[in-house]
């Protein structure tokens, strides 16, 4: 097994392996210049990584009634005329039917990379767009295609994003009958004026209806998605949104801090931190409020913007944060296979051409460009520091060298003292700042004791960009 994997590695990274075995000059060059990340150790890490066969698939269903003012996702706006779209089975929107056709063709034309074994999907995530606008009949087609191609586990987590006002009991029941078992409800806010100002296609009434529908259909695992720092959002509004969410008792809550993206309506209207957007301090307070209220209500803050009741982490999203490979299908979606992230075209026409080319064998989404150990190290740090579990220093050290661990520790030292960064031992007991300092001064001692580094909640999470880019400085100076 290992041998076969190595041979496949050779085909993917021929230059790298050659470097290790044959080219003395290059090895000298590497050892002479200070290398923050042990490049030749990375292959080992790659092996560890690639031992996981991809068992997750993201499926992009880009249709929305209209574009929200903050959104820069690849979507297709259908217009407001067809609120439910699927009341009459015969009147499926031809744009959707056509897209699903291409989507299924893409799935069929995708091959399992040679170094992976074919494993059935453990998670499937229908994201959007507004996937709930797609008639269940067509969702079923996608699932069947996936099943035929890779297999889908019987107990797979199958999530779908749904917007209030786009589904009824019947539709949700149909979806559940297809195996969909997790609903992510795009609520965003509980205030009419806020929903309006961010261009949502639904009101507060639809939110309550949707929550009722989810309850009456008996969906056990479901999430409420909220956005904080919306324009004109006041502290009491945010508090109200959080308490109404808690009252609805979802198993999962996602809290996004609004990002003002360039090519959006918000981008042209507003500047982050400036009126009518909340200032930096206020928006930090919103984050703290969410962290406190949700924790008090029994939710775990398991990732920067994700909370859940015990055992209800989103398995699909977790594959992202632990840097596991995954498939992706559909407009603008990004897959991660063989250490390579590949984004599909964001324009419908280009995407269709892409599918055509894929079928004709002209595209290979895990080809050419070489994977760099440094890149992997940065991905691992960036993603795992988003989680409450944090960065697993033992395996990170194994892959990238204990000197890397030491420099990461060195750069985080002042932030451990300030409480933004938390060090944990094997039993996840916190290592106090003074103890950490003395262990660090003894060099290798720290490697023995330190098992995890995580960002504190909420202070460290709030400054995660700063803290992660500090680590980047060490990994890729």
């Amino acid at each position, binding site marked *: 097994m290992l041998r076969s994997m190595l041979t496949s590695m050779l085909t993917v990274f021929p230059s790298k392996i050659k470097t290790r075995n044959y080219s003395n000059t290059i090895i000298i060059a590497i050892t002479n210049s200070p290398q923050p990340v042990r490049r030749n150790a990375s292959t080992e890490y790659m092996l560890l990584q690639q031992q996981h066969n991809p068992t997750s698939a*993201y499926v992009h269903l880009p249709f929305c009634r209209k574009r929200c003012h903050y959104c820069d996702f690849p979507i297709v706006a259908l217009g407001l005329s067809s609120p439910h779209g699927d009341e009459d089975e015969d009147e499926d929107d031809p744009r959707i039917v056509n897209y699903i056709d291409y989507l299924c063709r893409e799935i069929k034309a995708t091959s399992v990379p040679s170094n992976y074994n074919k494993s059935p999907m453990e998670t499937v995530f229908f994201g959007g767009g507004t996937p709930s606008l797609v008639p269940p009949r067509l969702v079923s087609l996608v699932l069947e295609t996936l099943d035929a191609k890779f297999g889908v586990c019987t107990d797979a987590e199958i999530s779908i994003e749904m917007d209030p006002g786009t589904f009824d009991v019947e539709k949700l029941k149909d979806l559940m009958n297809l195996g969909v078992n997790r609903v992510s409800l795009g609520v965003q806010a509980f205030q009419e004026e806020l929903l309006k100002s961010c261009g949502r296609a639904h009101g507060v009434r639809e939110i309550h209806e949707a929550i009722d529908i989810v309850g009456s259909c008996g969906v056990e695992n479901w999430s409420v998605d909220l956005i904080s720092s919306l324009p004109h959002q006041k502290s009491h509004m945010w508090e109200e949104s959080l308490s109404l969410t808690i009252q609805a008792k979802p198993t999962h809550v996602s809290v996004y801090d609004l990002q003002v993206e360039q090519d959006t309506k918000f981008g042209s209207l507003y500047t982050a931190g400036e009126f009518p957007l909340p200032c930096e301090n206020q928006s930090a307070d919103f984050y703290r409020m969410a962290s406190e209220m949700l924790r008090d209500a029994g939710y775990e803050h398991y990732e920067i913007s994700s909370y859940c009741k015990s055992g209800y982490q989103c398995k699909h999203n977790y594959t992202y*944060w632990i840097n596991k490979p995954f498939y992706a299908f559909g407009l603008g979606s990004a*897959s991660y296979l063989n250490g390579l992230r590949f984004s599909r075209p964001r324009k419908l026409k280009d995407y269709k051409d892409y599918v055509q080319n894929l079928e004709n064998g002209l595209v290979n989404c895990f080809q050419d460009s070489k994977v760099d150990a440094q890149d992997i190290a*940065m991905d691992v740090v*960036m993603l795992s520091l988003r989680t409450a579990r944090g960065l697993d220093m033992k395996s990170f050290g194994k892959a990238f060298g204990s000197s890397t661990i030491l420099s990461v520790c060195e750069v985080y030292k002042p932030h451990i003292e300030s409480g933004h960064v938390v060090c944990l031992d094997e039993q996840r007991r916190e290592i106090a700042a003074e103890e950490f300092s003395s262990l660090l001064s003894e060099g290798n001692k720290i490697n023995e004791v330190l098992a995890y580094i995580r960002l504190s909640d909420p202070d460290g999470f709030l400054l995660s960009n700063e803290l992660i880019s500090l680590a980047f400085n060490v990994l890729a100076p």
Partner: protein
Amino acid sequence: MSSFRRALRSKLSLFSSISTSISHPIATTRPLSSLLPYSQNASFCSRPRQNNKEGSTIDLNQYPSDNIRNFSIIAHVDHGKSTLADRLLELTGTIRKGHGQPQYLDKLQVERERGITVKAQTATMFHRHKFLGSDTNFLLNLIDTPGHVDFSYEVSRSLAACQGALLVVDAAQGVQAQTVANFYLAFESNLAIIPVINKIDQPTADPDRVKAQLKSMFDLDPSDALLTSAKTGHGLEQVLPAVIDRIPPPPGRSTSPLRMLLLDSYYDEYKGVICHVAIVDGALHKGDKICSAATGQSYEVSDVGIMHPELVTTGILLAGQVGYIVSGMRSTKEARVGDTLHHTRTVIHPLPGFKPAKHMVFSGLYPADGSDFEALNHAIERLTCNDASVSVTKESSTALGLGFRCGFLGLLHMDVFHQRLEQEHGAHVISTVPTVPYIFEYSNGSKLQVQNPAALPSNPKYQLVACREPTVIATIIIPSDYVGPVITLCAERRGEQLEYSFIDSQRAFMKYRMPLREIVVDFYNELKSITSGYASFDYEDSEYQASDLVKLDILLNGQPVDAMATIVHKSKALRVGRELVEKLKKFIDRQMFEIIIQAAIGSKVIARETLSAMRKNVLAKCYGGDVTRKRKLLEKQKEGKKRMKRVGSVDIPQEAFHELLKVS
């Protein structure tokens, strides 16, 4: 091709005002690529002209010193000096009309902002003129001078080779500050002065008023003034006859042993060092062995000729003539401007040298990215090859790393140097606040000349007994409506009024003694803005004066930032301190901890601001499709940090250093 050449030329010819107006035949015969790497080497007129019609016919023996006139054109900026020079070159057939870029220099940014010719440039012209009853051929050397006072050492160097000067005054604007300064330089050099009232074609021209000004300011006879328009050509025909009739021939003796004055030098990629020389006595031939009076070093003259205006080999130069020599010098440092060159094995009395360059403004130059030190070092070396007037010493700063302390002749010189570093050598530099050379005296009798404020101890061991600062005599000419605000401004800048008079009913003339420090940063801009751009300003160095000076330290979380230290007059310390601290608060980004910004004199804090800690910097979502994008964002953030300068644990963006330059 030609537009590319033009673009190239705009980069390489900052220092050659006459030659830029000439279509240059050599640039087309030389592969362009060979020009590029050394394009900064000032003049591109570095090779003998090929296929030159006249080259073989020029016989300098026909021009005894009686038939030679050496003159320069002096003027306030924009009064038409360059255009007049262009016309004279055209009139004598030295360049062809309509070729090349007229007044190319004035299009450069630094020119527009300040207005200057930086480097002297010479052109030899031939002109036939009825003189003492017979048609005679004359050899005329036009020695162009920089207009700005920063380069007055260049001016005096050029004037030393002249016997006369055309004093060009704009017919509408009248006498301006640089007119005054340049007049006195020429006057002190005993030059024959021919007033030229130019731009008389303008609707607002008032030559009579200008004549009256010339009379009252300089005691120049109104009837001597020539009225011209270099633009329309009006009156130009009188100029060269006036030069020949009114300016005396050079006084040298052709029979005496050779003495020549080294006027200037630059480095040419192909020929090595090219020296501009004025033959005072005797004659120079190709192949002669010559010797430097200053260094004793001897050289063999491998090429000798005139600037016509490109280099034209003549094989000889005779007394009174001005030309170039190539002598195998390896670096312009061997070519000491003002040096006397003579034949080896002859004993001569050296000519009086020029004023050596005096460095009045100092600033630290650091690579914007610390790792670029070698690149900056290289760029500075290359640039000083052609501008020996900059002094350069290595220095280091805890905040900025390794860099250089550079001494400049003045502000403009500093600006030009910075600009050339960036434009011609692609160097990105952080410059520290310019300072002037102060003198601090201590009770143990020691004296400290301070070129870098950081080098001045904040808490000295011995008691300070005196501090002295350099001053300048500033000349300001303004429309009389603006007298009030200008007096206020000068008083704010600790100026002492020396003279206040009226040139005529509309223009006031003022002289001030001012501390150099006060005009170093933004005086001229301020003056222009309060006078709607009508003020003209010039200054010359004056003595040191006793002054109550203090060192102002900037501290970030208690740590002094050496590169931000500055020396100020005690009366201004509080205001400057507050301003600096406020600026820093604005330009330093919030960080993960609180930052206390202080200004202090010794251990006494005089201004303080607190920058609160950053509250939030988080990317909410990060799913599969976002990973690449988010990582790019974070990497950008990381790169941003890398570009910052770090003092203690505080990151300082480069803009903060740039902004501090603007605080006076």
